[in-house]
């Protein structure tokens, strides 16, 4: 095994692709999953807008998406992906299925995080004349901020995992590189480098997530 003739240019490009996929998908996942999570929270049992049918339906749909293994979801979604983004290839073609795959997961984490907020705080906010929107935006979300940051951290790491799979069907990135060279061409050293970079990347996400959570914890 030799590390002399590594394609560092390819590795750099793959890293950039992974960063773009994780970053873009994370942003969209939060934008989509946060409202879904709030909706789950509000319609849940004994919550502000208790609505068993709405909650049940939303919950059912999210669970179905989460039941499909991501690699299958990628393939099943391909026609839809083409409709939405115009292509099923490259970063553009991969971010859509990534968001569909992780948003339900993130929405569940948001729901749990909001449920952890002391009911007394919600009651106090309402008693002070706050509307439901004010209570969510000004009281519940700030109170849940550390849990939400932890949820974003976990979701980002799941996204790193998923990009490896989406890379395999045309998204590129480090996972794709590792599979193409390491698995198909028996160039184990490239796979090892890719894995090492991924390990460092995930560690960095986790560490910065933890720091943010600690910084915003006031309890």
């Amino acid at each position: 095994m030799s590390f002399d003739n590594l394609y560092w240019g390819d590795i750099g490009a793959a890293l950039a692709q992974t960063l773009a996929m994780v970053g873009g998908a994370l942003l969209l996942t939060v934008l989509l999953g946060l409202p879904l999570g709030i909706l789950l929270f509000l319609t849940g049992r004994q919550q502000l807008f208790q609505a068993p049918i709405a909650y049940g339906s939303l919950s059912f749909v999210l669970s179905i998406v989460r039941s499909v293994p991501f690699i299958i979801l990628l393939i099943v979604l391909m026609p839809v992906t083409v409709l939405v983004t115009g292509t099923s290839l490259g970063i553009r073609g991969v971010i859509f299925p990534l968001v569909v795959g992780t948003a339900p997961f993130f929405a569940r984490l948001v729901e749990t995080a909001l449920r952890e907020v002391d009911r007394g705080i919600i009651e106090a906010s309402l008693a002070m004349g706050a509307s439901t929107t004010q209570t969510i935006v000004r009281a519940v979300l700030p109170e849940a901020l550390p849990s939400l940051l932890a949820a974003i951290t976990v979701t980002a790491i799941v996204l790193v995992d998923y990009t490896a799979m989406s890379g395999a069907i045309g998204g590129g990135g480090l996972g794709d590189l590792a599979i193409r060279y390491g698995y198909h061409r028996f160039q184990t050293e490239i796979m090892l480098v890719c894995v090492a970079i991924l390990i460092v990347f995930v560690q960095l996400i986790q560490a910065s997530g933890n720091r943010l959570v600690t910084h915003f914890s006031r309890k």
Partner: protein
Amino acid sequence: MIRLENITKRFAGKEGAIAALDGIDLAIARGEIFGVIGSSGAGKSTLVRLINLLERPDGGEVFVAGERVTEAKGQRLRDLRRTIGMVFQHFNLLSARTVAGNVAYPLELTGRFCKAEIAERVASLLDRVGLAEHARKYPRQLSGGQKQRVGIARALACEPQVLLCDEATSALDPQTTGAVLDLLRQINRDLGVTIVLITHEMDVIRHTCDRVAVLDRGRVVEAGVVSQVFLHPRHAATLRLVREAEPDGGSLDAAAVSDPAGRAVRLTFTGPSAHKPILGRIARENLVDYAILAGRVGHIRETPYAQFIVSLSGRDVAGAIAGLRASGVDVELQGGAPLPEIEGVRHVV
């Protein structure tokens, strides 16, 4: 100021609906401190939540400041809630906001104040509750008593006419409880805010309230001025709550049973008579002896009281009782055979 008319509230239970409140009628006057006492499960928390419609009644009407509030919705309900402050047992402060931020919260909600106005109001509110130097701390850095002071400042932020206190001192130690109750009384005096105070402790009522209603299993079983309810409890639930406040579990009335020969009477001295040597003088004048079987001495707000169960024996027991009554002492016969020769003495069984 606040009127509840024939309020009923039911909750769904395992075996059908359970009546949490059942035909409640209450009238609370402007500027008074009104206590609602009851053991846990009596419905008092539900009762106080009806006043700002955190709970809606199944039947009956709620009036605040002459306005029928029971049907209020949307913006009108939110405006109404701003005129009613609320203080909670577990403080319910926003942990992500500083002390100042917590007090500013209700002001920000209104959208009617600029930042400078809010800062000014927050400063004067924190000054009032004695927390000016803690403005930039977070709630977790405060003691229980300090947290409740933040809760009180927050409840006063929108200059409410009514302050609802739901077990506001139940999570505090006795000394802090006293300080917080003193603060509430001071606020009542200075601002004229009507205070509704929910508690399960008779001592809190005795220390703070003008009038009290006793709640038992969803009904008001006794109501009146505190001294009357506290010193002459009639309902079993009231008696139980009064006894809980006694150091030895309240053997006051049970002691009457062990009265050997004499006449057991309960004497209640209130106001100035509590400090005068009435009992000894009257015993001498009527040639009677007395044995003190039980007693309690203290204050109801600022008014001193003393209450004893004494056994009277000797020549002119009836004369002694008449003399005591003439001196402004409340005399109640305890059990045993009544004295037919004394008219107008209340019998307590």
